């Protein structure tokens, strides 16, 4: 009977394509929109992932997310260092500073100050130059996206692409000279500002005079140290907030979830995609069943059980669902692939595959159920009503 079910499904190519396309569309929207959403949301904590090395971030207890800087006293670094279970603790400065560019424009930049000796927390991938070059006087490393775009020199042709910043070019940060010694690749951040790396002490001299300038203390736990235990110990000893890398990511992520309209916007479009997809696919599938009602009646009259008919319909639904799903996620992946070098945020975790799979399954089950109800209620006697 399965063969018959498949033949019935694929016999009418127009309807078959219609169902598959409806499901493909639904699957595409339910995958691509969340992928963009996740891409944007992952930028809220991309800085934390990029730094990577430390297990624990220590900061002011009132910090709400990664860009919400509430500086600490410098001595807190040594207090954290003195807590048992801490392998090392390093200072980090992070702040928005205005850079005066070559041509006199101003650009707000995210300045990151790394520990002078170890340069822990540096950019993950160096495209040009070395991180060690930060030890030269007045040296900074800029990220490639910033160097190409916002920090670039204006194009000689009006409206053309800016000339990228190169090694050896200089900027002014708060009236102090900074020389570019390296170009780094960093994951884009939520605000997409250029990122400038320098040493902690130099960052302090670039930063406006403030009594406190230490943004974060980066902590590495000793081997075998329970992180939850250590964060608790840091919190209780210093009175500061200490988060593991994952906790800090979650904190930043949730801040944006609760305080911006992004989740609602994307949630709406995902829901719309689901509803439209469900409507199209469900409608076509139901129409298909209705169109084949006489055939089901004949099969029923000839002694096919309801159970067999249900299996046939389920098989049809599973087949169109799988095909639509495969095409949908494939198209999403293709979309992501095509957009990989653009500013577009796109993140495709395996959970998303499950999510859209579940969504498509739901649509198929919905479509199958209304069809099955129709077929089960069908009186075989209709076969004689020409």
């Amino acid at each position, binding site marked *: 009977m399965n063969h018959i079910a498949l033949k019935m499904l*694929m016999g009418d*190519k127009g309807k*078959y*394509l219609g169902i*598959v396309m409806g499901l493909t569309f639904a699957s595409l929207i339910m995958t691509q929109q969340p992928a963009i959403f996740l891409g944007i949301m992952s930028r809220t904590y991309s800085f934390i*992932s*990029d*730094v*990577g*090395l430390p297990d624990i971030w220590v900061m002011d207890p009132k910090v709400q997310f990664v860009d919400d800087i509430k500086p600490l*006293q*410098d*001595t807190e670094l*040594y*207090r954290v*260092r*003195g807590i*048992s279970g*801490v*392998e*090392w603790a*390093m200072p980090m400065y992070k702040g928005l500073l205005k850079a005066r560019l070559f041509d006199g424009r101003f650009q707000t930049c995210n300045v990151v100050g790394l*520990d*002078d*000796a*170890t340069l*822990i927390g*540096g*950019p*993950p*991938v160096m495209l040009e130059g070395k*991180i060690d070059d930060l030890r030269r006087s007045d040296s900074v490393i800029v990220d490639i996206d910033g160097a190409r775009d916002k920090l670039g020199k204006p194009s000689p042709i009006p409206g053309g692409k800016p000339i990228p910043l190169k090694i050896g070019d200089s900027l002014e940060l708060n009236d102090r000279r900074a020389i570019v010694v390296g170009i780094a690749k960093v*994951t884009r951040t939520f605000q997409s500002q250029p990122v400038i790396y320098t040493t902690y*002490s130099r960052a*302090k001299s670039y930063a406006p005079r403030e*009594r*406190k300038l230490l943004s974060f203390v980066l902590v590495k736990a*000793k081997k075998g140290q329970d992180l939850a235990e250590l964060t608790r*110990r840091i919190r*209780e*000893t210093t009175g500061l907030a200490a988060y593991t890398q994952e906790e800090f990511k979650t904190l930043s992520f949730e801040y944006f979830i609760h305080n911006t309209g992004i989740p609602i916007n994307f949630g709406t479009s995902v829901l719309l995609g689901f509803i439209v997809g469900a409507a199209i696919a469900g409608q076509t599938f139901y129409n298909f069943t209705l169109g084949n009602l006489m055939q089901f009646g004949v099969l029923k009259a000839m002694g096919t059980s309801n159970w067999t008919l249900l299996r046939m319909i389920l098989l049809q639904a599973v087949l169109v669902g799988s*095909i639509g*799903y*495969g*095409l949908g*996620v*494939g*198209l*999403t*992946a*293709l979309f*992501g*692939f095509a957009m990989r070098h653009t500013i577009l945020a*796109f*993140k*495709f*975790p*395996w959970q*998303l*595959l499950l999510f859209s799979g579940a969504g498509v399954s739901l649509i198929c089950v919905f479509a199958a159920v209304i069809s099955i109800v129709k077929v089960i209620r069908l009186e075989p006697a209709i076969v004689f009503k020409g």
Partner: protein
Amino acid sequence: MQIKYTLPILAIVGFLFAAYTVINSNQPVPVAKAVTEPASAPFKAFIAGAGIVEAQSQNIDIGTPLPGIVKTVVVKVGDQVKAGAPLFYLDDRDTRAILAIKLADLAKAKADVNVAKATFSDAKSLSDLAEAVTDRRAISTEELLKRRNVLQITKARLESALALVQQAEASVADTETTLSRLIVRAPIAGEVLQVNIRPGEFAQAGFLNTPLLVLGNLDQLHVRVDIDENDAWRFDKNSKAVAFLRGNRSFKVDLSLAYVEPYVVPKKSLTGDSNERVDTRVLQALYRFDRKQLPIYVGQQMDVFIEAQDYTPDQDLENHLNAKGPSS
């Protein structure tokens, strides 16, 4: 018939591509390794602090007792000097001129003494002659008195001249002292760490922001460790301490306590900023170490770890409660 296979194959290809994208795009971001591995404490529980290296003697900012133009500087940076060895000379011409005057005065005073002596001996001989006459009628009483008085006067004059010589000698000695104060000498044996004065410059007496010359004894170095006042109670004088060189943690040295400055001072930011800010108070402990073990320079920063009692706040609280337990 093609559609029968095309769509499922496309779907499978699509799914595989999506799976590939998932696997490929979710590889963790590479993590930037530390340029040098940071130092980590070899103790289970410890106090961490920034230390700055100084000479055992502390660093002596050499000052001058007298202001003046520098004539010559006889040492250069890195010279080992003995205690009392001259470091630099101030211009002493005017003092020497004064000395010449004083010496001339002395000579004149001495000459005056001779005159007084001669006068005295003349008066004495005249007086002696008169006293030798036994016949009172041979010499008038008036004459005798006169000669006696002259003798008294010349004696007094001689004494005055002698006093003047003493005065002139003292005056010469004073000028010579001044002259020697124009030579600045090493108060201790040590090494010249800094020379900020050159011949022809004016050396000012009194406290200076930039010392004229810095001298220290580098045979034994000390590292001055700042301990946050919040951690000060955990500090134990007898516990072990280790210092790591910044930039290469394979250079480490055991420390032994020299002394603790019992007065808690406002922390000077040792972290390299030019404008020192006071943000907390720190207990300063000074540790000795063998300088041969480390390629280190005075003034360099080190990461210092001092072993301390284990401290977890809740445990502390628990102990506290336990202690209180029976009574409540």
